[in-house]
């Protein structure tokens, strides 16, 4: 029987594990879970891990992995060695009964979702961690610890844990600004407001590209995926790439001058108007 | 020839001609070629191959104060100084820049500043704030710099001035556009300022403050200290009661908002606070605040004294239309340009010297 191979790293994604089990059932594939956590700890050389993994893929029809930094390096290398198609950062996965994987991801940085099929025998995809909900009661085949490989072509001399402020991924409330904020000064104001209500500051990619906010604040497919209890999107139009990063929020509030901005379709509450005026009013009220 | 972005700016002009009414250079010369719009057209012709970049065109690109008045009022949001600066780069690269411009550049290369002179030492080695004097005040308007330092002393602020203060890059940027030679100057300047470790740098010349605050970070040489304009700093000292002026009536005066305070910082109140504290009754010129008309820059005065003096006289004409007899400024470049052509019966006032007289 052909396999659906799920590769987990040091940060296993239990939601993806659940999804993989469902896909394996529908696609009539055998689920096999392989952890490369030990290999990741043993060597910093992702190319050596990818090379070693080739031998594990003889029966694979589908290979999935969470899009962690290291698996985002390992998976492409493995895909090249297998000459297999690989889709990055999927936000949706489906499978046909014949085992054809349908991968959905935001495309082209604007308001489009693309569904992608893989033409090669092995179909590979990485998935944004946290995309699928986990099931604590789910039953899965035992995770195989993959034999650690050794290489010192890339060596880790020092590892600094980043402590304390986990930034936006852990925040309960996020106030996020987009290009509509208009200036760096505007962002300072937004930051002050966020601070006042105990929220973290986020930003859209456009705002980061314009230099209004640091990259660390970026929410979206090329930034952080967040799932706060409350997400306040200010001056953000709502490009698919941004929505992919914040759709997990419990409640979404959108503040935008343009009543036609797509963000309103993805928000629970909205106010159309000048963001500065509205933030000023909110500040007074709170 | 110029970057895609600059060309976009040059070509998106809608011919509304507002900039023609605002350009201080075209006002004085009456030359159509001196409008921002015309300069954009020239570049557009170059990109289409219908004109060639020659010495005349290069000269036209230098007949501009880079005062940003056209940017401030452009309905399409386009920025003529962006492509004018790039065209200047091109002029220097192709040896087409006017000889006087090349002389200025040579002076900077040889001596570090446009005047080819050594900057005087101000002998200040205080511990509270760093005061960045800038080459115009140091070499051409030293009284203003000294008056400013006296004010700080009276307010109990211990000020430091760098010996051999490096140039900020502001003048070179006007002469050859934003190029690596300018960022090299910016980096040495930022290094020297950062080496003092002082928490605040007070910048006497707002043109220097503009490049430090609005460009250094994007060039990767951010100043760690807080950069404050000299006007805002003194206005704060007045507000906090560190300087207590005696009441003394000096008559009517009008504040000149220099190009950078007017359009880069939108800082208007501090200059007026200082003027009031110095005893002036304020009146306003018609073109004030964001719309303030340029009176020329020190760098333009160096390579193009004739036109720059005319531009300064255009600003005096604005004053003559008010009841005020005194032109009030706290900017060394404005002071230098305006001092070239003080009309009879009018006075040019350096606000720091004026404030010194009453505290």
């Amino acid at each position, binding site marked *: 029987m052909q396999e659906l191979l799920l590769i987990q790293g040091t940060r296993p994604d239990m939601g993806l594990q659940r999804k993989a089990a469902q896909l394996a059932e529908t696609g009539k594939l055998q689920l096999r879970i392989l952890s490369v956590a030990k290999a990741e700890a043993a060597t910093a050389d*992702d190319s050596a891990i990818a090379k070693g993994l080739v031998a594990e893929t003889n029966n694979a029809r589908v290979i999935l992995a969470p899009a962690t930094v290291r698996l985002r390096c390992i998976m492409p290398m493995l895909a090249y060695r297998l000459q297999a198609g690989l889709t990055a950062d999927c936000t949706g996965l489906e499978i046909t009964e014949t085992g054809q994987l349908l991968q959905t991801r935001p495309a082209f940085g604007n308001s489009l979702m693309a569904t992608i099929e893989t033409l090669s025998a092995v179909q590979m995809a990485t998935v944004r961690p946290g995309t699928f909900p986990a099931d604590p009661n789910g039953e899965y085949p035992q995770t195989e610890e993959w034999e650690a490989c050794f290489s010192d072509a890339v060596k880790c001399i020092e590892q600094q844990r980043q402590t304390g402020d986990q930034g936006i991924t852990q925040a309960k409330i996020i106030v996020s600004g987009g290009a509509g904020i208009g200036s760096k000064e505007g962002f300072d104001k937004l930051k002050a407001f966020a601070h006042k209500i105990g929220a973290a500051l986020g930003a859209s990619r456009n705002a980061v590209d314009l230099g209004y906010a640091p*990259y660390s604040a970026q929410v979206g497919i090329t930034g952080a995926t967040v799932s706060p209890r409350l997400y306040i999107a200010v001056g953000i139009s709502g490009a*698919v790439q941004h929505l992919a990063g914040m759709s997990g929020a419990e409640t979404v509030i959108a503040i935008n001058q343009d009543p036609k901005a797509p963000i309103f379709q993805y928000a629970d509450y909205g106010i159309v108007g000048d963001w500065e005026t509205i933030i000023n009013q909110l500040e007074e009220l709170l | 020839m110029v970057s895609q972005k600059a060309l976009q700016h040059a070509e998106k002009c809608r011919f509304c001609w507002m900039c023609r009414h605002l350009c201080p250079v075209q006002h004085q010369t009456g030359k159509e070629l001196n409008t921002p719009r015309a300069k954009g057209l020239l570049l557009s012709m170059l990109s289409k191959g219908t004109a060639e970049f020659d010495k005349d065109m290069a000269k036209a690109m230098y007949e501009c104060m880079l005062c940003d008045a056209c940017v401030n009022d452009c309905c399409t949001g386009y920025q003529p100084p962006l492509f004018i600066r790039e065209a200047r780069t091109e002029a220097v690269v192709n040896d087409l820049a006017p000889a006087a411009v090349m002389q200025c550049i040579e002076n900077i290369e040889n001596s570090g500043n446009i005047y080819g002179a050594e900057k005087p030492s101000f002998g200040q080695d205080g511990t509270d704030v760093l005061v960045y004097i800038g080459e115009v005040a140091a070499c051409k308007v030293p009284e203003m710099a000294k008056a400013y330092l006296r004010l700080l002393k009276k307010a109990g602020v211990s000020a430091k001035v760098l010996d051999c203060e490096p140039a900020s890059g502001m003048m070179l940027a006007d002469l050859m556009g934003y190029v690596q030679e300018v960022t090299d100057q910016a980096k040495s300047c930022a290094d020297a300022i950062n080496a003092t470790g002082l928490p605040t740098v007070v910048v006497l010349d707002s043109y220097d403050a503009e490049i430090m605050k609005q460009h250094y970070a994007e060039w990767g040489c951010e100043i760690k200290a807080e950069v404050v304009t000299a006007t805002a700093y003194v206005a704060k000292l007045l507000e906090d009661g560190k300087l207590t002026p005696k009441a003394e009536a000096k008559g009517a005066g009008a504040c000149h908002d220099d190009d950078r305070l007017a359009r880069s910082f939108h800082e208007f109140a501090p200059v007026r606070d200082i003027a009031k504290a110095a005893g002036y009754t304020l009146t306003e010129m018609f073109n004030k605040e964001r719309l303030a008309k340029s009176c020329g820059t020190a760098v333009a005065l160096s390579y193009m004294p004739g036109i720059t003096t005319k531009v300064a006289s255009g600003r005096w004409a604005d004053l003559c239309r008010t009841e005020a007899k005194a032109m009030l400024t706290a900017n060394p470049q404005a002071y230098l340009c305006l001092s070239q052509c003080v009309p009879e019966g009018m006075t040019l006032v350096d606000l720091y010297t004026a404030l010194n007289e009453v505290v």
Partner: protein
Amino acid sequence: MKQIIACVKLVPAAAEVALDGQFRLKRDSTSLQLNIADLSAVEAALGLKEADTQVTVLSMGPAKGEALLQELFALGVDRVVLLSDRALAGADSLATARALAAGVRCLGEFSCILCGRRALDAETGQIPGQLAAALDIPAVTNGQQLEKADNGLSCRRLLETAVETLTVELPCVVSLCEYSYTLRLPSILGRRRAKDKQVEILTAADIGLVAEQCGLQGSKTKVVHVDTKAPGLRKCSYCNPEALCGIIKGVQ
């Protein structure tokens, strides 16, 4: 270091991009810009440059990108090679990496290849790894602060919860994060020198590839459907600041 190769991509500058019937980007209709993360790669390459080092920029895309690439000479880049051919169009990351690797093989001996960690348009971030696999050399992704070390390079790698300091043997591929370097401005001297230099344009045949290996034909993924709506539609009720206030207080 003999030769440092920086891979750059020209991406559509406009926020809105057009697609053709096969869901490929219509690259002719929009103006281009250098991909932001690639600016770091170019600057890092120039920063590592020594007297006898050649910095080569390698790009793949439509020929109209030539003008933009030409500007790189003024920064001190020695050679710019653009792979441009209709046959290369429509490539997924696998076919792109294959073409870039073939291009790299035409450039001669090199010490390292620097890339941006991902492109603004497709955002797969898969090229650095795939290029390294194609050339069978190690790769480090998500890099910052590249420096010369005893036997190669040292750099920082940004992980989810840690920053590692790594050393990597040469030759290698390193991908750099956006904004990890500030690209220098051209100098007057550089601009003068750039006047005599030209972007070299290579076709698929020039780099030894046949049609089946490149472009849409050489790709293993295919877009079968495009939807303009992202999942996660909600029903928006419009309200006033007072009501919002209540919602915010409820969460605090």
